[in-house]
């Protein structure tokens, strides 16, 4: 999995590239753990290049959400592809996590 961070002022845009499964989720968790400790006010997780996510991805998102709350930062999800969005919806995670259709909308919520 390839993961990059873009500095947008007080917001970090973390872009994940590749599937999130039981093999790659720990890598994503470790990366987000470090990013949250850097003190960003908001972290946007760009899912536009994640074609597949299993329940291991839900575990990763729960962990990121909890760590961000403890650090007084906010996690926002953006640009989930159709299949990943259905995982978020059917699991109920979409009722709790903040999700925007695009990264730009996540950065500039109306």
């Amino acid at each position, binding site marked *: 999995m390839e993961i990059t961070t873009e500095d947008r002022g007080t917001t970090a845009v973390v872009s994940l590239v590749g*599937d999130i*499964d*039981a*093999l790659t989720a720990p890598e994503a968790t470790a990366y987000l753990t470090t990013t949250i400790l850097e003190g960003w006010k908001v972290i946007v997780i760009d899912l536009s290049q994640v074609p*597949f996510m*299993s*329940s*291991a991805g*839900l*575990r990763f998102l*729960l962990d990121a*959400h*909890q760590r961000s709350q403890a650090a007084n930062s906010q996690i926002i999800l953006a640009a989930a592809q*159709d*299949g990943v969005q*259905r*995982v978020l919806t*059917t*699991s*109920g*995670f979409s*009722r*709790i996590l903040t999700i925007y259709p695009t990264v730009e909308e996540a950065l500039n919520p109306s």
Partner: protein
Amino acid sequence: MGEKLQITLAAELASLSTFRSFIDEACQAAGMDDETCYDIKLAVDEACTNIIEHGYAGLEPGSIILSVQYGARQMVVRITDFGHPFEPGEPPTPDAEEVFESGRIGGFGLFFIYRSMDTVTYETTANCNTLTMIRQQNRA
């Protein structure tokens, strides 16, 4: 019924992406739509993850045989392993609010297996365990 394809890989997490690619190719050959294909990949991924993390726990590394048979807008998926029996009984629907309140997560893997597939059956013999899952295309 129809074409049959099979692949055998080591029961390790690094095999998951290859199993998903195998399903992708089978779905493409079968003319399945993207949503159906994602659902089948999700069920296969979750089932194989359970086998790797639980079925072979404490045992020498083994293998997983994934076979698919398709035709007439239907795909039959069989997953065979040689580890501990681990019957994926249908779980209650996980409560996301409870998950975020407690910080504990579990049951989503089995939830996705049953939600993604139309029928799920499990058989254990003296030698192996076989999970059979069937999915119709465009079941809505």
